[in-house]
Each structure stands twice: as structure tokens, then as C-alpha cells.
């Protein structure tokens, strides 16, 4: 028995099997009868129907419409629309802000992803060894994850005020350092949002990696130690390859998350100063709901979809080369 229902609701299916809902009805050749198979398919479809209905209405349909709108000249304020062919895509090439936005997006991702991975791996390895304070440190690291993104961004904005009004600059002033206007200076604004984002999401990756670290096979590590491996060699040659499936998984999730950042930018910098923190998703919002150009915003969304798709495929394929567990 392996219907769509069992795939989507495996626990429910096993429960029903235990309850005797799926009776073993076999024909003379020992195969399930046609009537039984039809009944089983119908049952499965019924179970997944609400989920699929939601998926079609709220995911697939908007996704299709974004592709359709990207070929239209559509103004949200005036409600006007009309087919414009590839004009919106041609506009991408001539839009200097789009190029800047694309660069900002990659800078943001290149800042967030390595920082997140390095810190989460370091913390996970440390917490995997600590015996008593493990839960307390984990709680502190995980706290930002369960905090609302809006609240987190507002608190960060408060901490990063310019002058001595902000607690961070106040502290720096006590050390004799004049802190910058973090969110209003071009050079600092991007760094500030990157750090804010890393701290916000670090906990989730640490949690996943702690699980992987605690499940490292003791016998393999012990064997490596007997063979003389220690310190960096033990980490690089033994632990890292064993942790690679988890690392690759969180890399994919973190890359996708960094490409889709919105709340941090909206609440902390509004894309400024001078568009220096304008990333792709925020630019889509900017075009759709500030400039009211829904057609162009849809073309940008299609592009973002393709970028994320390509990056995900590349990373997925990288699993085979980098992870010993993959075929």
C-alpha cells in the first residue's frame, strides 16, 4: 500500500492500518482487487483533498498568475492592464536599480550564509561537548528564532541608533570609540542588516547541527583517535564529512532564506540609504506596492524564482560530490 495518502499522511495511514481500515483484500492471484485499489485511491485522494485545494488556490494559482502578469503592463493604482509581450523583461536589462538590487542580494547572501554556517557549526560543536550549561546556551541562541521577526527588527533598529542614543554606540563611546550611524550610512547599513539576520536565524541551524553532532558515531571517532587523529585533523577528516548531509541541508535552507529576506530590510532600512540595502524581494515589493507596477514586479518575481531554482539545483547536485552519504 503506497498511495498519495500514505505519502502525505504517513502516520495517519499507519494508524488506519492498525485500526483495520485497510483490509487485505486480495484476489485469487494474490494481488489487490481492482475494486479495492479504486477504493484505496479514492480514500487517499479524499484525505489529501483539503491540502491539495489549499495548495492549488494559494500556491499554484498565484505562481501561474505571476508568470501571466509578467507579460502584462499592469498598474495597481489605476487598475489598468494589457498584454505587453516581453517588455517587462526587456526593462530589466535597462534598469540600473535592478542591477544594483541584484548585487545587493548576492552581497547579503554572501554575508549571511557563510557567517550563519560558521557560527552555527562552531556553536554546535561546542555545545555538543558541554555537559551542564548546554541547555542554557542553546536557549539563548534559540531565543531569536522564536521571537517575532518584526519585534526583532524593531529592537535591532533601536540598538543601532546613530549618535549616542543607541545602546551599542553608547557602549562604544564608553570605550572611546565613536560608533557610526549604523542604518543611515551606506557602508554600515548592509553589514548591520546582515548581522541582525544572522543572529535571528542562527538558533535553528545550531539546533539542527547539535542533533547531528550528538549523533556522530562514537565508534568511528574512537577509531580515528586510536589511529592518531586529533584536533583539526579529526574535525576536518572525520567529523566534517559525517556532518556534511546536515550542513548541506541547512546551506540550501539558509541560501533560499537569504534570497527571500524582506521583513528585516523593510523594518530596519526601508531599502536605504540610497538603495544600498535594496534586495530583490524588497525591490519586488517596491515596484508592486510603491511604484504600483505589478507587471514589472511579476517579471522580477519570475527572475527570483529562477535564481532560487538554479541555486537549489546546484546545491542539490553538490551533495553528491561533498557528502559521503549521497549516491
Amino acid at each position, binding site marked *: 500500500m503506497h498511495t498519495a495518502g500514505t505519502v502525505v499522511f504517513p502516520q495517519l495511514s499507519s494508524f488506519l492500518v492498525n*485500526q*483495520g*481500515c*485497510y*483490509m487485505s483484500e486480495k484476489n485469487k492471484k494474490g494481488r489487490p482487487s481492482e475494486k479495492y485499489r479504486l*477504493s*484505496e485511491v*479514492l*480514500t487517499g485522494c*479524499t*484525505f489529501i*483533498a483539503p491540502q491539495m485545494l489549499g495548495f492549488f488556490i494559494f500556491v499554484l494559482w498565484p505562481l501561474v498568475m505571476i508568470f501571466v502578469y509578467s507579460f502584462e503592463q499592469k498598474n*495597481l*493604482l*489605476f*487598475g489598468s492592464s494589457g498584454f505587453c509581450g516581453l517588455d517587462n523583461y526587456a526593462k530589466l536589462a535597462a534598469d540600473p536599480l535592478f542591477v544594483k538590487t541584484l548585487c545587493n542580494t548576492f552581497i547579503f547572501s554572501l554575508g549571511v550564509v557563510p557567517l550563519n554556517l560558521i557560527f552555527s557549526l562552531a556553536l554546535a560543536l561546542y555545545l555538543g561537548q558541554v555537559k551542564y550549561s548546554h541547555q542554557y546556551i542553546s536557549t539563548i541562541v534559540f531565543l531569536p528564532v522564536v521571537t517575532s521577526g518584526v519585534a526583532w527588527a524593531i529592537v535591532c533598529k*533601536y540598538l*543601532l*541608533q*546613530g*549618535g549616542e*542614543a*543607541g545602546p551599542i554606540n553608547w557602549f562604544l563611546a564608553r570605550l572611546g570609540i565613536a560608533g557610526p*550611524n*549604523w*542604518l*543611515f*550610512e551606506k557602508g554600515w547599513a548592509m553589514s548591520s542588516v546582515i548581522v541582525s539576520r544572522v543572529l535571528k536565524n542562527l538558533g535553528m541551524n545550531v539546533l539542527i547541527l547539535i542533533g547531528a553532532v550528538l549523533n556522530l558515531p562514537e565508534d568511528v571517532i574512537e577509531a580515528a583517535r586510536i589511529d592518531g587523529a586529533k584536533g583539526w585533523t579529526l574535525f576536518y577528516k572525520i567529523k566534517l564529512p559525517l556532518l556534511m548531509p546536515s550542513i548541506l541541508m541547512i546551506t540550501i535552507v539558509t541560501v533560499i532564506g537569504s534570497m527571500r529576506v524582506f521583513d528585516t530590510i523593510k523594518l530596519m532600512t*526601508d*531599502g*536605504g*540609504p*540610497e*538603495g544600498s540595502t535594496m534586495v530583490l524581494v524588497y525591490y519586488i515589493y*517596491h515596484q508592486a*506596492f*510603491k*511604484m*504600483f507596477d505589478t507587471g514589472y514586479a511579476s517579471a522580477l518575481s519570475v527572475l527570483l524564482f529562477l535564481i532560487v531554482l538554479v541555486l537549489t539545483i546546484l546545491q542539490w547536485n553538490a551533495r553528491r560530490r561533498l557528502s559521503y552519504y549521497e549516491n
Partner: protein
Amino acid sequence: MKKNTKLLITVLAVFALSAAAVFAAKAKKPSGPVSIKIATWTSNKDQIALLNTFVQEFAAKKGMQINADFESIAFGEYTTKLSLELQGSSAPDAFWILETSAPAFIQAKALAKLNTSLAAYNPSDISSTALELWRKGNDIYAVPFSTSPFFMLYNADLLKKAGVKTPEEMIKDGNWTWENFRTMCKQIKDKTGVWGYQTVDGGGYDVRILQNLCPIIRSYGGDVWNNGKVLINSPESIQGITLFHDMVYKDGSVVPPGDQSDFFAGNAAMTVGQISRVSKLASASFAWGMAPMPKGPKGNVPVIGQAAIGANARGKNVALASELVAYMTSEPCVARMAGIWPPARKSVLASKEFLSSNPKVTPEQMKASVADSIATGRVLPSHALYTQIDVESKMVWDKLWKPDADVKSVADQVAAVYKKYIK
């Protein structure tokens, strides 16, 4: 019957019943109260309660029940969110509109014509200057309920502590000018360590750039744009912008960008506000006062924030919402709102009651800072594509908020953005 067949039938029955309930609810004709959704940018409970009183009075007059649902949208997001809602099925039936968005909403045909509904409420009493933005040809699309000038609010305790004269005293001496205002702010900062001035709602560097700069540049003879001509980089405008820039970066007397210090919390000695902001001072821990904006070579030219209310032309209750809008802007209603939103109705503005309409403000203050300022002030420039102009130019304005900014160069770049739209 087999167990899985029973299960299938049960699930399908639940779906069928749910669907039937939804369709039945849709098909059922409304016989109870009518729901009217009204969008505003105020979230002040007293102000919303006052507006709701008007709705209930209107309902009683019509002999029906109306459930008013007030939606408060943040000022900075107002036009964006409203435009989005107007395309959907949960759009408000009536909504406030900013003066800068007037041409856009009229051009977008989002507003219902109000001529018929207004006819019952003496439309000739509404100032034709105030109504100018809200009409196209002979048709009226929205009614201004507020023509509220911006004026200076000050913390009297801080001014006393700094040993500087109050704006009223400086007006009496005839030297309440922008230059003296600058000197005064620096003295306050130097002597008390508290900021001398906070821009309007702290938004002078992002969502309220023009509200902040216009009173200065206009009093120097400059402007943003006027009659199809871009004036933001004129020598007079540059002079005004430079004065403000120097206050922020040379004197260090103005709450700078990125700093959340607030006048109402006692962290700045002066700010710009409207009469509706006075309610925020009800529980202030300091003595406060108000005065007209400082003057420049061309006098005192405050910004008048104009707000109108209109009915959604594509709404579910167009006729009812139009009548409600007309009633809410009738003479008896605006007379009661006058203490918060100075009206555009001539009869109310000229009445003695108007000067004493706000219990927190003396008639003298009301006359000097509100009534007289309405005569000298001007609204912000407007355009059908104002939101786009605002958003695009903000990115250029960002270049101004640094100590070594070249004011002339930034103003030229802003002018270049404006010229793309102003023709």
C-alpha cells in the same frame, strides 16, 4: 458497509455540508445592520469615537443600523495599502485621502461623485480654494474635512532651562525667524544637552521630507515644484535646505537621522505638529506651548496638511457611503471636529466657537498658530504619480543626510527626478 467506504462517505458529507453552509450564507440577503468600512490614518481612540458618533447619527437619520468598521493604516503606508485594498474585495467604502494623492485617486476613478449627496449640506460654504484639489470640472470627488496648518510646539521647561526666549516672546520682538530659530536650537543643545528640534513625527529624513523642508524653503521664496516648474534646486530652495542641513550637521542641534529621540517624551525642545497632535501632550510631564512657524524673507509659510474623505466608487455601498461622506463633512459635524481638524467650511472657521474648540489650546494660540496660519500656509504639491515621485526621489534625498553632503548637487539630482514626472 466497509470501514473505508464509511470513512469516505463521512468525509465527503462534511465537505458537502460545509460548502452548502458557505453558499447559503452568501445567498442570504442581508436584513440586519449594514456594514461600512472606513479607512483613516489616525488610530486615536477619541478621534475614532467621534467619527463613529457621526456614523451613528447618520444611521439614525436614515432609520437604519450601520456597523462602522474603522481601519487605521499607518501614515507612512497609507496610500500604498489603500491602493492595494481598493483593488480587492475588502476595500473600504469610505476613506481619508492625503492631498498629495488627490489627482491620482481622481484619475484612477476610485472616488464616487459627491455632487448629489453634497447638495443637501450647503456645498457653497466649503472654501473653493480647499475644494480645488478635489474636483474635476464641475464634479466633486472628495470633501476636505481638515485644512490643518503645521506649527511649532515647544517644551517651555527646556526653553527656560536653556535661558532662551519662547517663540511667542520672539514674535513680540519681531525676530521669530529661521536664523534665530537655528541659534536658539544650538543654545538649547549646548546648555541642556537636549536636542533643540525634532522634525515632524521624526520623519523629516524619510516619510516626511517635504513636510519638513517646505516651510523653510517656501519662506525663503523657493518651492518644490509649482505650475509645472521644478523649483527644488532654485537658489532660494538651496538656501532653505542648507539652513536645515547645517542645523543637523554643523550645529548638531536637530535630532539626526536614525535617532529615535522624541519631543513628546521630553527628548527634544521643539517640534512641528498639527492641532490633532496636541492630544498627545495631555499627559506631558512638562509645560508646553505652541506658536506659528518661524518666518523667512518671504514671511511665514507653513505647510497646510489637507485631508479629505471620499466614497469608494467601486464599493458595495456607493450611494450610502456618498451620503455618509456628505453628512460627516456637514456644518454640524465639522464644527465638532474643528478642535482636532480645522475645517474647510467658511462658516465654521469664522465662528468664535472655532477658536475655543480645543480645550487644551487657548483661543489666542488657536488664532495665532491655526487660524492665521491657514491664511498664509500652502498645501504640499500634488501629482497623479506623487507616490512614485516620492519613492524615487527619497533615494536621492538619502544623499543629503551626511555631514559632507553637497546640498546643491543633491538638490539638482532631486530636481532631475522630479522633471521626469513634472512637465
